[in-house]
């Protein structure tokens, strides 16, 4: 059985930050990542990040992954990393974790503390023909283009104008793919205004109060019908046919929290955070005394916030084991999160977080 002080489940923005922080306190850390390489969504992000210098603002996402990986490497053998390993279960009786390497090898892990940094899953919305080849999640499009260097098609309809929809539209254009249009059911873009302006000035229409009605085609996507919608997202006519061979869905994410459910963490459904998430205290500890959460698994938010949450969880998990950490850093990290969440776009996050924060846990 593999054993470790701090097990980090997920090697993305939150998990790598958590691992780096816990290791810097002296803890032995093991990172299990289901993908073939570390970095999570960061490695697909070719755009420059927002935030402040503390969150590497102005640096491209994949470069931030490199920075975090360097930090992990500098911790030497205190951090053990396994890729292509999926955590499959948590057994609350004795805290055993089960994991699977590839498709063959099963093994068990015994960890004193666990940080769940499992990220999120993409949502899809139902519409006729949404099972045609050519209907992609935005994450898949990014993986194809930015990890494997494969363009998904020639002309894309983007569904959703959150930051992911806007940024992936821009990345598609950088890859030489036309973006026929972006549709967004809300009366304003959900992502940053500047990201919308960036693609608008390159001639991409953004249809607000529009949604996809159906995909056209029999074997593959050959087009799409979009239509105007009302406040309740019901179609009210004004249909347009869009010429496209790819429909890219960027309609939101849901936190990946199965492990938290299995462990019996107290969960709450919070629409602002995009699904069920564990309650947590100021150290990102869940109601389970050995389990912390960070990043999108604790509520859908920007990668910059995920990295800070990872730091908090890593620091606290290590300190709970008696490793020396600077407790003052907790205040610093919370002040950074406060700044990141302060604006108009952070309003939703603030409302969500206030529903899941507890003052402390009764031991």
């Amino acid at each position, binding site marked *: 059985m593999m054993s470790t002080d701090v097990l980090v489940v997920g090697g993305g923005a939150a998990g790598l930050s958590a691992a780096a922080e816990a290791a810097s306190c002296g803890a032995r850390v093991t990172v299990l990542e289901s993908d073939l390489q570390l970095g999570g969504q960061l490695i697909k992000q070719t755009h420059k990040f*927002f935030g402040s210098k503390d969150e590497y*603002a102005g640096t491209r996402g994949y470069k931030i992954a490199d920075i975090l990986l360097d930090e992990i490497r500098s911790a030497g053998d205190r951090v053990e990393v396994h890729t292509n390993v999926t955590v499959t279960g948590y057994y609350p009786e004795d805290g055993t974790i089960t994991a699977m390497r590839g498709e063959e090898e099963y093994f068990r892990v015994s960890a004193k503390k666990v940080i769940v940094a499992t990220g999120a899953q993409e949502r899809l919305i139902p519409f006729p023909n949404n099972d045609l080849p050519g209907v992609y999640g935005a994450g898949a499009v990014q993986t194809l283009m930015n990890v494997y260097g494969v363009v998904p098609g020639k002309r894309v309809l983007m569904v959703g104008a959150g930051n992911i929809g806007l940024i992936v539209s821009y990345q598609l254009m950088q890859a030489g793919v036309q973006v026929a249009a972006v549709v967004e059911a809300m009366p304003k873009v959900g992502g940053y205004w500047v990201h*919308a302006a960036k693609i608008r000035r390159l001639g991409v229409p953004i249809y607000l109060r529009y949604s996809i009605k159906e995909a056209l085609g029999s074997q593959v996507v050959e087009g799409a019908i979009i239509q105007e919608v009302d406040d309740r997202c019901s179609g009210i006519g004004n249909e347009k046919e869009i010429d496209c061979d790819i429909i890219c869905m960027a309609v939101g994410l849901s936190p990946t929290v199965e492990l938290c459910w299995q462990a019996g963490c107290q969960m709450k459904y919070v629409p602002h955070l995009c699904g069920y998430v564990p309650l947590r205290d100021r150290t990102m500890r869940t109601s389970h005394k050995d389990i912390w959460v960070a990043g999108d698994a604790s509520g859908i938010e920007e990668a910059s916030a995920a990295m800070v949450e990872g730091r908090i969880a890593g620091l606290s998990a290590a300190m709970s084991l008696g490793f020396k950490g600077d407790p003052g850093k907790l205040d610093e990290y919370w002040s950074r999160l406060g700044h990141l969440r302060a604006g108009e776009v952070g309003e939703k996050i603030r409302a969500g977080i206030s529903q899941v924060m507890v003052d402390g846990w009764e031991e």
Partner: protein
Amino acid sequence: MTDKELLFNSGILVEHREGAELPPMDLWKGKKNGLVVIECPQRIPCNPCNTSCPTGAVIPFKDINDVPKIDYSKCTGCAMCVAKCPGLACFVVDLTWGDEGMALMKLPYEMLPRPEKGDRVQCLDRVGQVVFESTVEAVTEPWKDSTLVVHVGVPVDLVDKVRAVRVVK
């Protein structure tokens, strides 16, 4: 919701407002090398325009969510912010450049093909319509991070319209 609001909500600047203002004309028209024009009207947690500014012209943010404020007397038109801004929302406009009636615009550029001096470009407005055809005067890469700054001449009456270029090859 008016059409104008809806247009703004889709990423089009329909009128100048806080965080998206033009420099004062009396200073602007005589400022060699140009002054910065920033179009960042939404409060978001982001400040690289300030931290990348070598002269302090982009005033330090009290709150990282503040929209940028500019001390135009300090701006040298260096375009470091143009290349650093993650939102590609910074531009420099030099009204003293070239012949009567022409201005030099320094615009961020992250597309292929990589433009070179002398290339023909289409100048695009905020909705991507071609409003002018011009020639690349210079290309710089201030941070050596693949974000280029393309210098193109445009008529003075288009400096509040042109916001992107497309290279014609």
